[in-house]
């Protein structure tokens, strides 16, 4: 008997019966007999016979190729330990930072990345013993360290929503707040603006997306919100004018959480 008990995109909690019959239990679900249940709070996604739940909360589980933002937490003889918000600490080896031959005996690695530095890196490997290797070679700005700005953390599963279709959401926030923003797939977002007020506004917008990722018409609401707040900043004399931003097409159901 093939049956689905919830709608696509419906909000479910752990233990919610989603379907029974010959479906495949994807991420965020588990199978018990011929029934499939949710294991997390999230939105149901049914594609063909594959059932998944896109979590609204939860830890960052790295995948090879992810671009992440991390913080150096330890400097060792030939590598760095990096916190990327995953259950496991990541490692960054010297040969994944530079092609130059480095004499480790004479080089102070802290001159390259010091404890507390924020870096932009790619997940190079994530193996079965849960060792995470990063690489910064070939990344924009050679991986950093990113100077100034602030880090804001969102739920990793909401990153696609923050980016939006073809970058629509994040580009709008950047443009309207005139800030530089780098979004890591681990949910860490680096925000840097010339004015603290604009930096703060960008962060507020990012957190709004994080909070309301499961709602409809979010891009329009975030735009409205930003324009309203920019208006206030203009009255206060913080900015001279509000940048123009035209979103392409009337998207009301952009991206996914």
């Amino acid at each position, binding site marked *: 008997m093939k049956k689905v008990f919830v709608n696509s995109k419906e*909000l479910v*909690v752990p233990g919610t019966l989603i379907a029974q019959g010959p479906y495949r239990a994807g991420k965020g679900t588990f199978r*018990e007999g011929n029934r499939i249940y949710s*294991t997390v*709070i999230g939105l149901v996604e049914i594609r063909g016979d594959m059932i998944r739940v896109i979590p609204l*909360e*939860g*830890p960052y589980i790295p995948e090879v190729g992810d671009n992440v933002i991390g913080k150096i937490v330890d400097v060792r003889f030939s590598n760095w330990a990096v916190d990327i918000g995953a259950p496991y600490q990541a490692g960054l080896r010297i040969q994944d930072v530079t092609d130059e031959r480095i004499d480790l005996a004479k080089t102070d690695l802290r001159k390259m990345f010091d404890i507390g530095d924020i870096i932009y890196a790619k997940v190079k490997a994530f193996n079965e013993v849960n060792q995470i290797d990063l690489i910064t070679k070939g990344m924009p700005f050679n991986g950093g360290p990113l100077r100034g700005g602030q880090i804001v953390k969102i739920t990793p599963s909401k990153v696609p929503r923050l980016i939006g279709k073809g970058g629509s959401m994040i580009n709008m926030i950047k443009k309207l707040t005139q800030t530089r923003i780098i979004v890591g797939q681990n949910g860490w977002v680096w925000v840097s603006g010339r004015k603290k007020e604009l930096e703060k506004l960008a962060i507020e917008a990012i957190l709004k997306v994080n*909070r309301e990722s499961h*709602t409809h018409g979010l891009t329009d609401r975030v735009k409205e919100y930003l324009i309203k707040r920019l208006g206030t900043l203009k009255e206060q004399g913080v900015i001279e004018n509000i940048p123009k931003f035209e979103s392409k097409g009337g998207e009301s159901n952009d991206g996914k959480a």
Partner: protein
Amino acid sequence: MMEKPEELKLLDEKGYRIDGRKKYELRKIDMKIGVLKNANGSAYVEWGKNKILAAVYGPREIHPKHLQRSDRAILRVRYNMAPFSVEERKKPGPDRRSVEISKVIRGALEPALILELFPRTSIDVFIEVLQADAGTRVAGIVAASLALADAGIPMKDLVSACAAGKIEDELVLDLNKEEDNYGSADVPVAIMPIKNDITLLQMDGYLTKEEFLEAVKLAIKGAKAVYQKQREALKEKYLNIISEEE
């Protein structure tokens, strides 16, 4: 249990309890999800006069390393009562009761978690009893289960819990403090409702086998009612956001 003052009647002629409830009625329960900034997940539960906060940290790497399990995460639970949570100040820190309760709560939550997903890590559950009025371990389990869901830790089911007990020769649901003090049995039960799996079961008291089984069934019914509230509370966190915006 204490000696009951003779004039104290826990059930009146009409079958009402001292707080006005009927025999099989739960106390008022309120749940809030995501109440702490630092924790990965959190929940606050008010259950009658019980006020209980639960927080979850992890999955995170464990130190010292010898505690790591190469095939799964370990679950650690600390149940703690605030010194001001009871009539007479409780000495801070774990006493024997808290140590036992922490252990049985861990056993109640563990079957619901898919610990194999996070080898070498720990998932830490902290339960703080801010005010106690009987039934803190079941309320603690309910809060902890919500906090785990809020942290996005994959679970096969929410764990729900409730206690039943015996007062004035009658089985009743969800004892309050006076009933617990002067009653003759307390049976806390936790379940995973999808499959009717009992994950916590204790008894403190003296009952016939039949009475005991009746008490367990009654507590299971109570836990199922609490389960519905848990599901609603979790959804509410997100549905509220929608309604605020529209």
